[in-house]
């Protein structure tokens, strides 16, 4: 499956947007982990803005990092959101409340607990009626989202924005589902080369296991294996420069996905 990359978004510890992160991923600047700044999205009405938690802010800011540099009208771009588990904090708060005597679940917490909450806020913020889906595929969520986004792009002959995001859960959930760091990655994909596309990616699934492409920096490698969205990092690194290369991302059942990146 061949698609064309028009824009990239990235937010993570020490990764403050795609433009600032490019030299780091390319190995031209040192990686210095730091705070992830996740402001509420200005585009949301005030009431909705107050209701958003960190997962929604992470997903929206990452998506806007990519879409902000695109000439495409934001309300015409379909979206694929993917995350291992969306809002662990809200889930934790609801479970705590349900284990108590009162069993109070706030309406806002409840509607924020759905896995597609970021997609809902996204469509409200951008007034976008475009189709959107929200996937969950445990450690393989980024790859599942990439396959879904590419399939959408090709079969519908429409651009699509993939937004992958994962962040740590609070205890006691963290102990049973540890996730490293707060990380969002986005790819704006088009079905054919355009004046804005700068790379072509060709994706194949492989039933057999192949060694996944690693990050050279130990801290970035820890993100790659510790955060489901971290599986995007080798793909994003390959998009930093003009070189052609093929990389491997691990997938379900011991399989893998190869991503061939070339300039266009």
């Amino acid at each position, binding site marked *: *499956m061949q698609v064309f990359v028009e824009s990239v978004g990235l937010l993570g510890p020490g990764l403050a947007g795609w433009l600032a992160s490019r030299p780091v991923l390319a190995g031209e600047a040192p990686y210095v982990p730091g705070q992830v700044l996740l402001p509420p999205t200005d585009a949301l009405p005030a009431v*909705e803005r107050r*209701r958003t938690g960190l997962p929604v802010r992470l997903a929206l800011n990452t998506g806007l990092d990519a879409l902000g540099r695109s000439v495409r009208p934001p309300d015409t771009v379909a979206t694929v959101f993917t995350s*291992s*588990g969306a809002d662990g904090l809200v*889930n934790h708060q*609801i*479970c*705590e409340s*349900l*284990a108590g005597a009162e*069993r109070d*679940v*706030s*309406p806002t*917490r*409840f*509607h924020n*607990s*759905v*896995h*597609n*909450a970021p*997609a*809902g*806020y996204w*469509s*409200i913020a*951008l007034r*976008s*009626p*475009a*189709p*959107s*889906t*929200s*996937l*969950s*595929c*445990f450690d393989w*969520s980024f790859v*599942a989202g990439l*396959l*879904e986004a*590419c*399939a959408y792009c*090709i*079969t*519908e002959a429409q651009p699509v924005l993939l937004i992958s995001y994962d962040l740590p859960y609070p*205890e*006691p*959930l963290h*102990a*049973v*589902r540890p996730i490293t760091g707060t990380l969002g990655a986005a790819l704006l994909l088009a079905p054919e080369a355009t004046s804005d596309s700068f790379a072509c990616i060709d994706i194949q*699934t492989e*039933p057999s296991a192949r060694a996944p492409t690693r990050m050279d920096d130990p801290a970035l490698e820890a993100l790659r294996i510790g955060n489901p969205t971290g599986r995007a990092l080798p793909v994003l690194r390959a998009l930093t420069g003009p070189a052609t290369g093929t990389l491997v991302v691990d997938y*379900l*059942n011991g*399989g893998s996905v190869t991503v061939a990146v070339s300039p266009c």
Partner: protein
Amino acid sequence: MKPLTLSAFTLTTSLGVGLRAHLEALRAGRSGLAPCAFESVRLDTWVGQVPDEQLVPLPAKLAAFDCRNNRLAQLALVQDGFLETVAAARNRYGVDRIGLFLGTSTSGLLNTELAYRHRDARSGALPAGFDYAATHSGFSLARFVQAQLELKGPAAVVSTACSSSAKVFASAARMITSGLCDAAVIGGADSLCLTTLYGFASLGLLSSAPCRPFDGERAGISIGEGAGFAFLEPARAQEPAGTVRLLGVGESSDAHHMSTPHPEGAGARAAMQRALCSAGLAAQDIDYVNLHGTATRSNDAAEDQAVSDLFGTGIWCSSTKGATGHLLGASGIAEAVICALALREQFIPGSANTRRLDPGLRVRYLLDSAAQAPQRVMSNSFGFGGSNCSLVLGRVH
């Protein structure tokens, strides 16, 4: 889109286990709803619960996945020759070439809710043996079904609230068209849990009586549970009369509010229009619409407007949620299977529990199931976050 054949399908809800039970119950206008006696829930509401005694532990080799949601999925999978269809398909296509796309909104969340009652007093830790990946995570359902069906193709869980298991039809169609797989198992499962019961109660959306879609006195939803599956493969030229096919899928976003539909049903209408377009059909080609019809005041009013704007007021419509309850993430597959049954068995399901139609609503609403000859039908699923999906299914002449 190129039509896909539903070579097998099955459904388990509070109406019964498997297709025969559903056909009989729908024809007779029976409802599976009963006053809520689920777990320790103290809410004045009705639910469509699958009896606990039917949800037996999983086979030993799959015991790690044991939770109510996966038990429900297991109960559904072993009905209607579904396992046999998939086994034959494994030989025909190969295990790597069959995709798996399932919808759920809460997956095994009940397990976590129960585990939170048994946290360590000092550390707050969850009980030893609690397995998040296998029994709680959204993807737990797909991992379990993939293991049960011995499949190794692409897989994903779609979780878009109440449109989840309708949207899996779209994912599967795209994956097959783009060559990532040759065929797919699709479906979904959602089981009762405290988060959804108390959550919908907090929004004031739970009815204290059995839900009554499109009724003038409708007062909210009744939550149900269920699991359904279908096997999708490219349609062949010569298929027996009565074979059911997926003809079109349409998706849209409301861009309006997190938990309230667009008042004029703009997003719903866009999804229906796109589904018709995807099927290459016009509104007059559709014989019946299985409505999302949740029985909240605002949902039914918005959908009524969207359907009557697009189809006029002559087309037969009904919601089957008065029979099954609202299956949330499983409602898409449940209602698609009910539509497939209607096409195969040539009837249109009525609306259990609806007594007197809301005079303010305009669609031609069917109260009692009727023998009819539907050829092409639409099924609507609309969810929180403004996630809309409509399916068009048809039968081979």
